[in-house]
């Protein structure tokens, strides 16, 4: 029974991904008909027409970025929830995104002002974000070894994130106006700032991260049994921990580098997947989180277009607007947090 229900959901979500992808390209401040979109994709419209430029240089990369972020963030969140055995773990909650921000700020506001920003714009920022994410993960791992209680770990992560934000604030105070403006733009979190050349880098890193995550499915399932049962079943805990940190760091860092910190997707989507599929096995929840994450980010991006308005809302505002009530609902419904997960 379960199997049929799961298959039906996977089919439904895959169709939804396709529909939302085209809807995301279709909807925007300049109205372009579906017919014109098809003509652009099939090459019937020259690439220098306004429609082609809007679609190929703005909407398509933005939709693809939404898809990549929609894959990466929920998988990072899922890995962290299993890894820390904490239902409210997520890249933004435990300060991992903040760690990325700090290193990006260091690169943008100090090194970037000394040298030409261009050299560092892509590779430097992405490396900084990944290293920052992994640094925080290792610190939290060290704390988690001493703090068994998930609420204590959560408070630690929140405080840690705030402390990092404070350091970023101080950095901003001492930096030049030009660099500061670039950095502030970055922190708004946006899917639209990603260029094609950045998109290629992003895609490669996200795909590597997802492949790494898939190789960890068996280990992740064993970790649900607790470290002692997992060890007695032959799992090399230390090796899987390093793999999981590496994967989470790659996925969170890459997205944070180019889109800025995007809140709530990482923590909320795996819960939604567990609610819909009613299992814990990562063989189901991981692909389910990917599909759901893509759908939700595409919806967020469509909402951000605010029909009738030329501007685009920051994606962070939309994800928080949808994500925060959902997480409150999860906590409200399962007041005993341990039972969620």
């Amino acid at each position, binding site marked *: 029974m379960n199997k049929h229900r799961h298959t039906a959901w996977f089919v439904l979500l895959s169709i939804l991904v396709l529909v939302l992808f085209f809807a995301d390209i279709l909807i925007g401040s300049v109205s372009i008909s579906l017919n014109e979109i098809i003509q652009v994709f099939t090459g019937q419209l020259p690439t220098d027409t306004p429609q082609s430029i809007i679609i190929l240089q703005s909407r398509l990369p933005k939709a693809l970025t939404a898809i990549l972020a929609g894959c990466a963030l929920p998988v990072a969140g899922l890995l962290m929830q299993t890894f820390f055995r904490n239902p409210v773990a997520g890249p933004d909650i435990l300060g991992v995104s903040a760690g990325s921000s700090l290193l990006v700020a260091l690169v943008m506001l100090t090194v970037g002002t000394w040298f030409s920003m261009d050299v560092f714009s892509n590779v430097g920022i992405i490396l900084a974000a990944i290293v920052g994410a992994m640094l925080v993960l290792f610190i939290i791992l060290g704390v988690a070894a001493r703090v068994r209680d998930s609420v204590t770990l959560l408070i630690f992560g929140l405080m840690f994130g705030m402390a990092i934000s404070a350091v970023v604030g101080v950095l901003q105070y001492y930096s030049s106006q030009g660099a500061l403006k670039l950095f502030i733009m970055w922190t708004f979190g946006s899917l639209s700032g990603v260029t094609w050349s950045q998109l290629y880098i992003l895609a490669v890193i996200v795909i590597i991260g997802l492949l790494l995550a898939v190789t960890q499915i068996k280990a992740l399932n064993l970790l649900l*049994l*607790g470290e002692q*049962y997992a060890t007695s079943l032959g799992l090399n805990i230390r090796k899987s921990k390093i793999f999981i940190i590496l994967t989470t760091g790659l996925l969170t860092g890459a997205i944070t580098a180019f889109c800025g910190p995007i809140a709530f997707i990482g923590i909320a989507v795996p819960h939604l997947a567990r609610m819909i599929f009613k299992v814990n096995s990562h063989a189901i929840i991981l692909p389910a989180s990917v599909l759901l994450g893509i759908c939700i980010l595409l919806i967020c991006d469509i909402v951000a277009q605010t029909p009738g308005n030329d501007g685009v809302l920051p994606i962070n505002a939309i994800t928080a607007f949808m994500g925060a009530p959902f997480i409150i609902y999860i906590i409200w419904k399962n007041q005993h947090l341990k039972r*969620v997960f």
Partner: protein
Amino acid sequence: MEAKTLLAINGLSVGYPDKVILKDMLLHIPAKSIVAVLGLNGKGKSTFIRTLAGLQPALQGNILFNERQLSTYTAIERAQLFSIVLPGRGDVVQGLLVHELFHTTRVTFTNGFGKITDDEIQLINRICTSLNIEHLLHKRIYQLSDGEAQLVFIARALIQDTPIIFMDEPTSYLDVVNKAEIFNLIQSLPQQNKTIVFTSHELELALQIADYCLFIGTGGKHIFGTTKTIIEQGYIPDFFNSKNVQFDRTTGRISLKNA
């Protein structure tokens, strides 16, 4: 006739680097026997069983399974040699479904992404039928009663399908009826070629089913032998070292001294 030794422990010290809890342990455990590890709280029963199960390192001495050092077995070979039953529900995620617990236990022996074979599904079904727990398969861990949880975790160890099972406090939190059920189950396992080493606070019940006993007393004092010898030689009262309880070696019962 003495059966072949399956598990040999020679000169073993257990504990932590800064604190030796038990030392000079000498135990030879034949296949298909039941060994009870008995003693008062905090005397090292769990430390001993955790060391045997490779969850913490031995400080000194040898642990040999089938005449081969424990440290030379790979992680997967160990998982095929012995399984464990932790106290209560262990550290298992509370929302996990019972059938997921069983599947994940088998998955460790598969390659790749963990698709399990029909044979393995049959193994799971057979054990669930024999323990009468099919109705629990779609429950989550936190939804189980303490008695049901204990059965589920013993079933998990059986599903791991190993010749040796280590159980740490398999009857803690249980009422007397559930305790009896678990002890009856343990007693039936040697017929399925299982060797059981378990720790317990249930002295009277444990003595009734154990072939061998390891008694651990205060100050690291310990003695190992057949249950019959241990009782008849009058070792047990020594290990209580209490003016409140007494042990009757003819009936195997414990009673209050002043009653």
